[in-house]
């Protein structure tokens, strides 16, 4: 089952990276511990423990089918950012990944009461062949090296070329480098 991890442009003109699918996890060798229970009918998220070729995380407990859960503002205390898993550099050539793999940003979003933090990662995943504008409904696995799967920048989930937000590398004429929810990483859109 597809579990799109989407980095999307929709937040204030910002793209959001797509959630990786179970396939993405398997491709990247991210073995899965059991996922946390889903809410609203969502299956659990695959775990992120293993580095060896894994078979994808176990599905979590099915959710409650969309029951409206009132959110209570938790009044979050400040906490330090959890350590990121950085195994490569998305803007380097080569990016430090084995042949056939590409460096992609990946974000673990929390499932807690609202005070947890997301975890940013840079991981080597198998590269697809999707280039600018290619559909990536199955997640980042479909995008070629140098491209990531985002939602919110164009219709649907699309592979778009990554660009550094510091302006050091310009997008082609007609494109602008728009921010995503991956730190420091934009996409040409």
């Amino acid at each position, binding site marked *: 089952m*597809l579990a*799109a991890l*989407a980095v*999307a442009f*929709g*937040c*204030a*003109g*910002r793209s*959001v990276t797509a*959630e990786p699918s179970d396939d993405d996890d398997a491709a990247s060798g991210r073995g899965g511990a059991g996922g*946390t229970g*889903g*809410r*609203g*009918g*969502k299956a659990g*998220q695959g775990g992120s423990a293993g580095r060896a070729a894994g078979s994808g995380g176990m599905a979590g407990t099915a*959710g409650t089918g969309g*029951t409206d*859960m009132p*959110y*209570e*503002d938790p009044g*979050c205390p*400040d*906490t330090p950012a959890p350590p990121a898993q950085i195994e490569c550099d998305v803007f380097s050539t080569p990016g430090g990944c084995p042949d056939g793999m590409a460096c992609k940003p990946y*974000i673990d*979003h*929390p*499932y*807690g009461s*609202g*005070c*947890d*933090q*997301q975890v*940013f990662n840079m991981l080597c995943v198998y590269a697809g062949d999707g280039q*600018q*504008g290619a*559909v990536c*409904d199955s997640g980042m696995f479909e995008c070629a090296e140098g491209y990531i799967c985002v*939602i*919110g*920048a*164009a*219709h*649907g*989930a699309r592979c778009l070329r990554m660009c550094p*937000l510091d*302006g050091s590398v*310009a997008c082609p*004429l*007609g494109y*602008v*480098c728009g*921010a995503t*929810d991956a*730190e420091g990483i934009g996409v040409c*859109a």
Partner: protein
Amino acid sequence: MKKDRLALLGGAALVVAGACGRTDLTPGALRGGAGGEGGMNDEPPVVECTLDADCVTEDLCAPAFCYLANDEHDVSYCATRVTSCDDANPCTVDACSPSDGRCTHAGPLDADHDGVFGKAREGTPESCGGLDCDDDDPNVYTGAHELCDGKDDDCDGEIDEGATYGSAGDAVPIAPNSFRSEASGFAFDGTSYGVTYTDTSADGHTTAYLALLNATGAVTFGPSRVNEINVDSYAGSVATPGNGFLTAWADARQNGSYEIYATRFDQQARKLEPDQRLSNGPNASINPAAVYTGKGYAVVWDDRRYSDTTGNSVFGRSLGLDGHAVGDELRLTSDDEYADSVDAAGSATRLGVTYVVEGPYLPDGSEPSTIARFRSYDANLGDGSGPVELGIDAQSPSIVQAGDYFVVAWHTGSAARNWGPSLEAATLDARGNVLAAGSITQGDLHAKAPSLVSVGDRVLVVWQAIPEGGQRFELFYEMVSVPDLRVVVPRQRLAASTTTALIEPTARLGPGGDVGVVYKTEAPLQAYFTHLGCSIPSTVR
């Protein structure tokens, strides 16, 4: 003419006295008089009398008299006779004073007390000679000075005629100390502009803020954090009821993906209540658009909870004036619509929603086109109409309500090439009937990101474009007529930079007819405010 009492039978109606509100009457003796209105009962009690003095008059506009016995009444009885004040002049308002029974004949009307009689009110003819085309607005009358306010102030049938817009000052950074900032929601509540922006620190953490700006872009209140969470926080859409702001945004604090939240701020940028979560589904809910409806708020967003089955959807939820949700989230698009890029506008009468859907796959396997669509709803997101197709190859549509109509504008292109040489637009009525459609800009290599401001019967369009021969995106504006989308004020440059692209403008009508615009620069990524000043020559009368 208005009559405060209905005269029957040639100007006099007989009403059995005391039929209502009297408890000391002899019940059920006789039926009411000929031609009289019944009381509260089918056969009301009758008060017997000998002289008029025996009958109690409670309202001198309907004095009670003693009527002699006749064929229908075998005893003398009290009944009222309503005074008719109809002077047969259709341009007056006829009334009777209950305290003394005297008739008054006021008019022609000057309901707003601006010294100019109204032209017409409901039920009266146009011929009464008044020269006030809006007798409910003391600033509108024949002879008034036309202002930049989207109204026909001088009653000549034209709105803001002669108005010119021009850049009224340098651009102002909204968050000058920010490492990176991006403006998002923008609204004017009659006192201040409210703008939300995403601030990114040097370590990459993002925080959403709301700041209030004055007419020139100076921060007057705030910035205030939109929320107190530890995940990255992104600014969202802003709506205003006229005395503060509601903002709706997406963040991924829980549920493993992005959800939609909302909260409100007062006119000093103080947060009024905890965040309220509006969406609850798997996968991302993003890109909220908030609208004040007059009865509350509506928030619509792109939702991917069905992305692995029927595709992306547009969802929405109604909120009360207190900012709390009233009812469940609603799916606004159908199973066969792969929909996103939603925007909304409206009022208490009708909410217009525009979005993009994916067209059918082509036989050769090439990428399907995208299609802009329109639906409308009541203020509670019920009574939906549509969908109505507006145009193909459409991207990121924007919508504004302009009087009784909606105007939708979008740029063309595809996911791979997300722009076209011109902006397209359509004018629709509240039920989705298309009045006009077509290109509204020309002269660009790439045009995109239109933002629309309603100015009476016209719409100001602000967009980003690389003009023919240009090297990077600049900002432009022009004015188009709502009914036919004709360009009535040609394009002019709003802002440009020799070093960076200026992108994603959002424009709102501000004080005195000025138009505030927020946008961002590409590198460095920073949010800016600028404004267009509006002026009308004093010769316009």
